[in-house]
């Protein structure tokens, strides 16, 4: 790997009109600067006249913070109105320390929102995939599972065994074959 | 934080109605103290006082210390009160509550500010060494009126206390152990006694020695500290329901008789203790 491509924050990378500023860079005045330590990369030109995207990929990942994207989190506690979760992975990069999020009753699924019962959707200890819909209040991010591919991805039955999804709102225990209710994520 | 236990509305009404009719739950008269018990020992300066269910322990100890610069020929007296969650479930340990501050301030005024103890007699070598007397007050059980109980405990413990005898030759100070020489008592000028009143119905009704439940429904309180010479040593009515002046004068009369009665009780307990030895 060419060490010449390693850049440090504040380093000038070129003129703003020549490139599109990708992640790890920013524009100030008419210049493009690096904002993290890492490798400078320029996207390959695919079409004629397309502006190249310049990115600096981080040499070391910053501890991730939630943004509007999909994430993985663990249910901590539930109330009739909401499920409190702790956000563990944001967009495939793990958070060093957990952030707190809330899935409100109306954000569990897309249809028949008024009939949602939290305890028939999530249980404490479930691992779920969700997405951030808002920065939320002072304490928590607001999350939603109102999409087919979002919902519980791993859960244990009362017996303590792992469960497999059998429909979008049911899971079955591998040991006792008991069926429990969950809002399941559609497997990829 | 644990919330303080509160009586129900029915209980409150019941107690209030009783007071209006001159009746109390424990069959006392409104101007009566509860049963007072004072026990001493086993060592000097330790007394345990019970006032109904309220129970307070006081322990006096002493050590030799350097005096304050502005009072070179006076001994020191330290009062220390600590409310532990044992008697006060709502108290957070470590941080003094507002109630604790008020109690310790009233005791300080009653015992230190009124000069109940002869501090000049505690001087060993001026500017160099004086006795420092420390009174530790522990609240063991709280059923109302801890101030009166604490004050009785503190003053009776001080009266019971004996400090080691000393001889001073020039700058040389010898402290004799209790086995070597008889320890000496503190010289006590007078015995301040606290009497606490509780007021109900905008000050219309007055009760002496309130229990915890009565304290919870009172609208105001007043603590008078007196001695047997009919001197008011301290008085504290920190806000609460406004009172007529006659009520206060009336209270002061009641307090004098109560102070006399309590002093006699303490004296009797001290005498009984002495005769035992």
């Amino acid at each position, binding site marked *: 790997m060419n060490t010449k491509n390693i850049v440090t924050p504040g380093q000038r990378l070129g003129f703003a009109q020549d490139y599109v500023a990708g992640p790890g860079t920013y524009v100030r005045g008419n210049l493009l600067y690096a904002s993290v330590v890492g490798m400078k990369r320029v996207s390959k030109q695919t079409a004629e006249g397309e502006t190249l995207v310049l990115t600096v990929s981080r040499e070391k990942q910053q501890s991730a913070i939630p943004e509007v994207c999909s994430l993985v989190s663990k249910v901590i506690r539930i109330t009739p109105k909401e499920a409190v979760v702790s956000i563990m992975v944001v967009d495939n990069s793990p958070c060093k320390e957990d952030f707190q999020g809330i899935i409100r009753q109306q954000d569990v699924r897309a249809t028949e929102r008024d009939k949602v019962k939290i305890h028939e959707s999530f249980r404490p200890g479930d691992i779920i995939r969700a997405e951030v819909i808002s920065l939320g209040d002072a304490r928590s991010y607001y999350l939603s599972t109102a999409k087919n591919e979002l919902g519980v991805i791993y859960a244990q039955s009362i017996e303590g065994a792992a469960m497999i999804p059998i429909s979008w709102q049911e899971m079955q225990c591998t040991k006792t074959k008991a069926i429990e209710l969950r809002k399941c994520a559609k497997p990829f | *934080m644990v919330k303080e236990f509160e009586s129900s509305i029915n209980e409150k009404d019941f107690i209030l109605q009783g007071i209006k009719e001159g009746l109390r739950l424990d069959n006392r008269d409104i101007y009566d103290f509860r049963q007072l018990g004072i026990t001493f020992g086993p060592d000097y300066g330790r007394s345990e006082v019970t006032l109904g269910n309220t129970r307070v322990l006081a322990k006096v100890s002493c050590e030799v210390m350097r005096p304050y610069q502005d009072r070179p020929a006076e001994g020191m007296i330290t009062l220390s009160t600590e409310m532990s969650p044992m008697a006060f479930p709502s108290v957070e340990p470590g941080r003094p509550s*507002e109630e604790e*501050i*008020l109690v*310790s*301030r009233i005791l300080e*005024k009653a015992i230190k*500010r*009124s*000069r109940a103890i002869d501090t000049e007699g505690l001087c060993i070598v001026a500017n160099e060494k004086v006795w420092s007397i420390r009174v530790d007050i522990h609240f063991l059980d709280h059923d109302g009126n801890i101030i009166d109980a604490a004050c009785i405990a503190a003053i009776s413990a001080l009266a019971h206390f004996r400090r080691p005898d000393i001889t001073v030759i020039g700058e040389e100070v010898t402290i004799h152990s209790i086995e070597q020489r008889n320890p000496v008592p503190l010289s006590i000028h007078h015995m301040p006694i606290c009497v606490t009143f509780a007021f109900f119905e905008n*000050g219309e009704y007055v009760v002496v020695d309130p229990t915890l439940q009565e304290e919870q429904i009172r*609208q*105001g309180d*007043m603590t008078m500290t*007196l*001695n047997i*010479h*009919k*001197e*008011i*040593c*301290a*008085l*504290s*009515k*920190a*806000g*609460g*329901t*406004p*009172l*007529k*002046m006659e009520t*206060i*004068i009336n209270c*002061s009369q009641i307090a*004098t008789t109560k102070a006399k009665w309590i002093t006699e009780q303490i004296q009797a307990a001290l005498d009984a203790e002495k005769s035992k030895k």
Partner: protein
Amino acid sequence: MSSRLELIGPQGLRTDGRRFNELRNMNCKPSVLSQADGSAYIEQGNTKCLAAVYGPREARTKAQVLHNRANINVEISLAPFSMEERKKRSKSDKRILEIASAVKQTFEPIIMTELYARSQIDIYLQILQFDGGTVQICINAATLAIIDAGIPMKDYVCACSAGCIDDEPVLDLNHLEESNTPELTVALLPKNDKITLLQMESRLHIDKFQQVMEMAAKGCKEIHTVLDKAVRENIKDLLKKSSI
């Protein structure tokens, strides 16, 4: 108390030239601060105090919320240069907390707190110079500031101290006098002559008690006239300003 100070001169005048039943020179003015909802400044002799009242406003912490009335919060601070010797006092000094608690309990039955459920009224007092009578000046300043803030209360609360020198009751003690004689502080509701606060230190014979208390109550009445005048003048000024 072996070396007793001469607190009364040969002509029967006190150390600062006052007669027995004379108050110290008193100055007061409401509305002195820009940020506070109500404020007041009071001088009683050499004791000077500023008061500010904020609220009724949202309670700062949930623990302070009372469901049926407003919570009153009192904070007192002493300027480091206010005493003879410079001393920085922490806010958790026992004596200061005691006074703060006394001021709080004095105003609780007087302010109509039931009109402002779940809210909070803050009373801040700053003592700039100290020459005896802390409790009384704190109460008088707070009364004026609360009135200035427009918070409804049942009556003025006026406080004054009295003592007893050589068996003679004296009014409004200064620092020298209060450290050498018994001191009784009384806070009075002037309209119905009821006493809300009564504090005493040092020894006083019970036979003198009533006399001293009546002396203090008389002082409270005098203070009431001064406070009332200040309030009325302030309102007149306000009317004058708004009519222009």
